[in-house]
């Protein structure tokens, strides 16, 4: 279980997160939606300390952390329980697809090389890249890179995988293959927090949808509730703007 309490973060004098609380049960898929600049990505980056939140608490399983007083050891411990899939993939450019997946297993978990490679191959097979073990990132399409990114995250067997707009940098044609992989992983019961603009996808895989705007959580609920019966006016506005056709379909 992941729990966030009172997360506050400001860049200079500009507050980005104004007290966020969020509970994610084990195996749950939480999708965070909202307009650009609403703090979704920052929230995600605060969870694994790529940004340091100014206030707030984080609970992962039995472990509690205070963002403000987190030591180097705390940060490393949080990062070893989480994994992230980036908007711009961020595969290690100097490593092959397989090495991208095995690197952290070998370096940070002390897994033996051949064992790590077996895990790596299995995961690359799972994301449909059986023929790309030895390809360097620059030789892969965006969709393939992102699937390696997902395999890299899975390899760590984390408590939660954080997806930061995983399809936003992709060609429309390639979005589908990545979403399909994420969906497959979600079905396996891995806890996920997904920031995305793909609302149809959100409606499909999410157990819980969170709508953020202006650094706060405006509304949250099941996809059914949030997408079809939004209570807050701001949520209605947002959904109307990006899903006009839904109003006619349903």
């Amino acid at each position, binding site marked *: 279980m992941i729990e966030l309490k009172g997360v506050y973060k400001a860049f200079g004098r500009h507050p980005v997160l104004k007290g966020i609380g969020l509970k994610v049960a084990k195996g749950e898929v939480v999708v965070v939606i909202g307009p650009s600049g609403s703090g979704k990505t920052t929230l995600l980056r605060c969870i*694994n300390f790529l940004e340091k939140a100014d206030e707030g608490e984080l609970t992962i399983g039995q472990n509690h952390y205070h963002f403000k007083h987190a030591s180097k050891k705390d940060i490393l411990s949080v990062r070893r329980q989480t994994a*992230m899939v980036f908007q711009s993939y*961020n595969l290690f450019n*100097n*490593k092959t697809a397989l090495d991208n997946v095995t690197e*952290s297993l070998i*370096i940070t978990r002390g897994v033996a090389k051949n064992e790590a490679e077996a895990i790596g191959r299995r995961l690359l097979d799972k994301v449909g890249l059986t023929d790309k073990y030895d390809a*360097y*990132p620059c030789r892969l399409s965006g969709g393939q890179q992102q699937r390696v990114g997902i395999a890299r995250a899975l390899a760590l067997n984390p408590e939660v995988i954080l997806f930061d707009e995983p399809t936003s940098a992709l060609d429309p044609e390639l979005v589908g293959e990545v979403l399909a992989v994420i969906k497959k992983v979600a079905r396996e019961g891995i806890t996920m927090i997904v920031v995305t603009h793909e609302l149809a996808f959100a409606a499909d895989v999410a157990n819980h949808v969170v709508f953020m705007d202006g650094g706060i959580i405006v509304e949250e609920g099941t996809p059914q509730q949030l997408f079809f019966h939004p209570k807050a006016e701001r949520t209605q506005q947002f959904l109307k703007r990006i899903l006009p056709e839904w109003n006619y379909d349903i």
Partner: protein
Amino acid sequence: MGKLFDIQLVFEYFPKLLSRLHITLSIVFAATVLGVILGTVLALFRLAKTPILNQVAVVYISFMRGTPIIVQMFIVYYGLPLLLLMIHLDINHWDKLIFIIITYGLNMAAFMAEIIRASIIGVSIGQTEAAYSVGMSRLQAFRRIVAPQALLIALPSLGMNMMGLLQNTSIAFSLGIIDVIGKARVIGASTYHTLEGYVGAAVIFLALCILMEYGFTHIEKKLKYKMIGLI
């Protein structure tokens, strides 16, 4: 004195010049190694903004890049022994070559520091973030992900600086070192045939430069092949 320029003499002096090549090469290679090591340390101080050491690095780099190497050479040759004598270390008996290598190494370090710093900054921040996100420590992320990519970015500039260093060694004779240029000078002084010696030296320097260019291009290609599309 005879002819002003005798092509025959160029060939005659050439082996004599070649016999001093090892001195020139040892200055270049030892100073490069020293420069890369010290330059990396300076670059890391700058990047980590280590208090005091960062400022020291800034001043050091400005001084070394802003003063002529011949001045630095004399400061090291005459100043360093005095400085070390204060802590009761007598280095006056050291070979002159060592002072030359120290000078060129210290000078190279200043240039390398800025090259290395720029190369590390040149590696996308996303690479570091990805390394952190999978649980690597700062050192692991640097050593395994950032440094290999930075090396590729730094390589062309490193090659250029090494060639610059090679040309710069031509004033090492000011301290009485008999390297290739020193030998050409000695030959000139004793035979009054100055030009022939220098022409021979020019051929040697040119050949070395072409070799270095070739070598660096080769290494770069090999590394790049592994990470095509990186630059």
